[in-house]
């Protein structure tokens, strides 16, 4: 684990970047540092691997003061991922990933073999190893950066706004990848971001820092949304926090109703209610409004697009959103394979919430 004990950083020009920060990042968990610019989150991160040294206070990794180790040696045991990836342009992707193993003395063959393994772990094709960073897209470069950080299997991973420079679609994919990797590898991760939604999605614990480098709140994301410590945290967390909190509430006990269905490719008689059209594999393809007349076999043109899908067993937020976004008032519930399970009703989601609150 990583412990900050009253860590302060004052720069020569008088600014205090970090002010008596004390917190503990637990082993095997993702701890996120989040806050507006000037809150000292990057400075704090960079003090862990001694890219910057504190003015006061101490940082411990597994009860060892980081200042007692030579910085270069310390950093070889810590993975470090930065926003622009910082890949070495003059080396191939494979050699980039093999950097730390080579530094600590592995043979070239062993290091490259390990690098190839890691490319697979981060979801890149093996052929990419022979390319140069300039030939990769931003998202691919970030993945290589993560692979490079993981190459020597360090117990600690530091990530400084690693996904901020890529577009939102790619960013979501990378976030999901990180969560998947973490579930397999269980590293101690300290992650810096300015995006509160990213913090809530990724963090096991979130530290909200305010300008001047002071800690405003250090709590699991659920608690951050439910009980923000003060006005700053509450406004930083943003609107809709009641709704967003639903991501953390499970949907056990939510009733799933059978839905009227029609099959694509078969004739559909007019009905007096909404019907869900499914394909051959049982996957929902859209809604057929009541009293529609369809000539011949049912095709997708006759359908109204459906709302978001709720995966059974997921959070109440998924269920509520499915119900709210559906044209028929029934949220569509599917299983892991995407096949229809049934329908959920918004009112019942809220009733379930109320009963949770009554119970606690």
């Amino acid at each position, binding site marked *: 684990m990583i412990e900050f004990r009253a860590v302060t950083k004052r720069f020569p020009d008088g600014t205090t970047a970090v002010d008596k920060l004390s917190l503990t990042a637990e082993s095997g968990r993702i701890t996120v540092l989040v806050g507006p610019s000037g809150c000292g989150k990057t400075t704090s991160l*960079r003090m862990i691997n*001694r*890219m*910057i*040294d504190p003015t006061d206070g101490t940082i411990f990794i597994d009860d060892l003061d980081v200042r007692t180790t*030579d*910085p*270069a040696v310390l950093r070889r045991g810590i993975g470090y991922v930065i926003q622009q990836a910082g890949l070495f342009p003059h080396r191939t992707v494979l050699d980039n990933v093999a950097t730390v193993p080579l530094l600590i003395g592995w043979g070239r063959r062993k290091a490259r073999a390990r690098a190839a393994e890691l490319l697979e772990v981060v979801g890149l094709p093996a052929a990419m190893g022979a390319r140069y960073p300039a030939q990769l897209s931003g998202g691919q470069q970030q993945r290589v950066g993560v692979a490079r950080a993981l190459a020597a299997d360090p117990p600690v991973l530091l990530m400084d706004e690693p996904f901020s420079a890529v577009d939102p679609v790619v960013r979501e994919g990378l976030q999901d990848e990180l969560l998947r990797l973490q579930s397999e590898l269980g590293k101690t991760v300290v992650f810096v971001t300015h995006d509160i939604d990213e913090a809530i999605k990724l963090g096991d614990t979130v530290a909200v820092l305010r300008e001047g480098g002071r800690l405003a709140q250090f709590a699991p994301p659920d608690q951050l949304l439910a009980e923000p410590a003060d006005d700053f945290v509450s406004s930083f967390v943003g609107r809709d926090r009641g709704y967003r909190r639903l991501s953390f509430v499970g949907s056990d006990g939510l009733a799933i109703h059978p839905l009227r269905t029609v099959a694509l490719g078969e004739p559909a008689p007019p009905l007096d209610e909404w019907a869900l059209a499914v394909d051959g594999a049982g996957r929902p393809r859209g809604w057929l409004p009541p009293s529609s007349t369809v000539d011949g076999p049912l095709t997708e043109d006759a359908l109204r697009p459906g709302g978001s899908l709720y995966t059974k067993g997921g959070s109440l937020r998924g269920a509520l959103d499915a119900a709210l976004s559906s044209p028929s008032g029934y949220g569509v519930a599917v299983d892991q394979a995407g096949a229809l399970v049934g329908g959920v009703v918004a009112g019942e989601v809220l009733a379930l919430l109320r009963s949770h609150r009554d119970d606690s």
Partner: protein
Amino acid sequence: MIHDLVKYLSNPRNQDAVVHLLLVHIRLALVPLLIGLLAALPIGWAAQRYRRVRALVLGASNVLYTVPSLALFVILPSIIGTRILDELNVVVALALYTAALLVRPVVDALDALPAHVLAAATAVGYRPVRRFLTVELPLAVPVLAAGVRVASVSNISLVSVGALIGVGGLGQLFTEGFQNAYNPPIVVGIALTLALALVVDLLLVAGRSLLTPWQGQRAGRRRLVGAA
């Protein structure tokens, strides 16, 4: 040494000679600088705009710049009909040289102009020539100024080497001193060349600041890696 130097400088005939050589040197170095710059602007503009012109121009200027200037001084007369030591010969040769040197900075400077600024200028209603003169050129000044500074030092030094084949200017002090095994003219020549280069450089920097009032003094310090 100092004694000899003082003796040399207190002789009014020497003083006249030195001043005369300095003026010739200034003329021979700076007139081509101006001509070369004026020539490089339209050529560079064309090269930046049209791909084929660009490859041709950059290639030609590269070759021209590679040819030693002394060689140019000597060969040019056969082409333009002057004699080697004619001032016109030297000026033309150095103007060609300066133009070849400055074409690249002109192209680079125009390349670096932000596209949205140019788009805004066109949208406001500037026609191409006016846009070039009033928007593109001023913004290109910093990069151009750097190139002109290099060219000015280069020209000043080239005129002095020209003394080998008899070209006028401060270089003659070196040949005179060497032939008479007499130090003072050489020392005076070196000092004046340095002083001239310095003054011209300062003037160019001042000129650049005058032409770019929107640019303050930037420290431009890069962030250093922290511990070790």
